[in-house]
């Protein structure tokens, strides 16, 4: 329990840090939405000043931050100036799509990477291991934007999967099953990019930790007792190798979230990515801050889930024997 409390506290501190950081940047920023507005000859300076006062932008930084923090805790992320609507619902509709995408991608990455890593570690030094090493180093080194563009080109050219957006025209008329199918088809491309760009890191880490475990004496003993290779690998080695892998889980979530921003923009998936990019280009700062904070929240939540999983997997943490790091 104490372990979980400590982790929760750390998560909260992390969030406060992120939000404070975001807010500090607003102060350093030269130029704002209203400065752009001021250049517009059709809007009088008085109107701009009045608008500034109305949105509370004439208050000092610390006041604005504490007000904003108080409202964020209540689930209110402020008011988007460009969309002329509250930020929270804007973010939420998009965040669901991002979560759907990154959740699926995370699931697939781990589903593929863990058995593959265990397998390659078990056949250490043989051609399978070497082939996997080559493929993973290629995947690691190719920038995500190139993977995204290449797969997009492939998809547009071959018309294997539909591209752009999340729903086809006439989505409302489809049956429930048809709707699910439609979304699933349109998810193929962004998910594939995300999986390809992040699977190699996971595979490498898990492989390294499985390899380390496989060289331990108890595995040798188990092998000597005639336990089958598969059982040895998945029942005896993997759970012990899980600790560093689970710690990686939180981190891989960060890369996936970062990656999904790019992928969403390139493939036209209506997630947080395009929203934040548009907000950036129109200098809608509260929306940007809200988006970053939300993505940080996902991150922290992911890390916390990893911590809970660690607690479930690693008896050393439950008994408080070793210091979790």
């Amino acid at each position, binding site marked *: 329990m104490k372990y979980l409390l400590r982790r929760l506290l750390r998560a909260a*501190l*992390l969030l406060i*840090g*992120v939000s404070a*950081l*975001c807010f500090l*940047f*607003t102060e*350093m*920023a*030269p*130029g704002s939405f209203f400065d752009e507005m001021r250049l517009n000859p059709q809007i009088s300076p008085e109107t701009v000043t009045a608008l500034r006062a109305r949105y509370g932008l004439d208050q000092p930084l610390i006041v604005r931050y504490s007000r904003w923090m108080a409202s964020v805790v209540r689930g209110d992320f402020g008011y988007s100036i460009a969309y002329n609507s509250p930020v929270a619902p804007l973010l939420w509709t998009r965040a669901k799509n991002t979560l759907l995408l990154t959740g699926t991608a995370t699931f697939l990455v781990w589903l593929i990477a863990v058995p593959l890593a265990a397998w390659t570690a078990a056949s250490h030094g043989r051609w399978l291991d070497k082939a996997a090493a080559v493929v993973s*180093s*290629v995947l*690691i*080194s*190719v*920038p*995500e*934007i*190139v993977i995204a*563009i*290449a797969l*997009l*080109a492939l998809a*547009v*050219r071959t018309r294997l999967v539909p*591209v*752009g957006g999340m729903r086809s025209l006439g989505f409302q008329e489809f049956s429930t099953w048809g709707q699910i199918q439609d979304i699933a088809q349109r998810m193929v491309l962004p998910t594939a990019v995300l999986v390809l760009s992040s699977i190699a890191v996971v595979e490498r880490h898990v492989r390294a930790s499985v390899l380390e475990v496989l060289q331990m004496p108890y595995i040798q003993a188990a092998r000597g007792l005639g336990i089958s290779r598969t059982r040895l690998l998945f029942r005896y080695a993997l759970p012990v190798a899980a600790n560093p892998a689970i710690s990686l889980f*939180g*981190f891989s979530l*960060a*890369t996936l*979230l*970062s*990656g999904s*921003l*790019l992928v969403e*923009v*390139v493939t036209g998936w209506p997630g*947080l990515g395009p929203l*934040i*990019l548009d*907000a*950036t*280009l129109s*200098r809608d*700062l509260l929306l*940007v*801050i809200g*988006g*970053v904070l939300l*993505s*940080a929240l*996902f*991150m*922290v939540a992911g*890390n916390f889930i990893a911590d809970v999983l660690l607690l479930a997997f690693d008896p050393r943490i439950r008994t408080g024997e070793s210091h979790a790091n």
Partner: protein
Amino acid sequence: MRINTLVLLLALAILHLLVIFAGFIAPYGPSVQNRELPYAPPTRVHFVDTSGFHLRPFVYSQTLTLDSYKEDRTREYPLHLFARGETYTIVGIFRSNIHLFQVAEPPRIFLFGADGYGRDEFSRLLYGGQISLAAGILATLLSLAAGTIIGTISGYYGKWVDESLMGSAELFLSLPWFYFLIAVRAFLPLHLSPVETFLLLICVIGLIGWARPARLVRGVVLSARSRNFVSAARGFGASDLYLLRRHIFPETFGVLLTQAALLVPQYVAAEATLSFFGLGVSEPEPSWGNMLSTLQQYNVLVSYAWLLTPAAALVITSVIYWLLADALHSRLKSHSI
């Protein structure tokens, strides 16, 4: 192992020399437009015509007819090596107008085709590399400098300094950094001169990434601090600054070198991505990112494969740097054991 590293270093040197001497190698300037030749395909360089083989390669002029380009075979235009053309400067100092190869007008030579404004993709690729690679390398230097300073302070002084610094490092590491990168960019002015944007990009990309090198340097400093020779030097009355400079900093060198090889491709890709989104270096200055941004239109993406060359350049750069990082890493490991 050794030969591999040498080959990689050679490849790296060639890549950077190509880009540095862009002015000499590229036949045209980066923003020279040929509006009558939009999306011209790569020019074919010929050696053979009806009269047989020629040692001097030649091209035919291309003209746009309806929707496709035709080669006009009536007249051959030979390639001139080391011919005079447009004036350029190399690293901003040496002015010259001698190019590696030129073709007498009216035909143009587009080795990698042309973009929508009829600008030579090959020339733009080389000039764009100047911006992309310089951004990656300078941002890496910035990251490493910040990381080294913070990591050294953190590891050397320990206690609450260490705890607060590493706490904020963890904060930076756990952020989805691309969101953060865009957010930071969002708070900075959008419309700037290309030079300002370039410097701004370097600062943003470099400063956000300080945390990882800082953590690594801290680890090295921490272990170096407790070494016997450091204690001995301290016993002889060496000052903090002397200890750091003479005994501790050299220990971090290997880690920093490996980090550099890892960070450069990441930052080149980051610059490319930001420019791709229109948040980086803007037209007409080429960068690998903003050259790719025309591909956001599906018809361009599908029809003009040669516009993918910046992506290929990105891949080549990344692969070389990654392999180098790998080689450095395994070398470092075998040395320290």
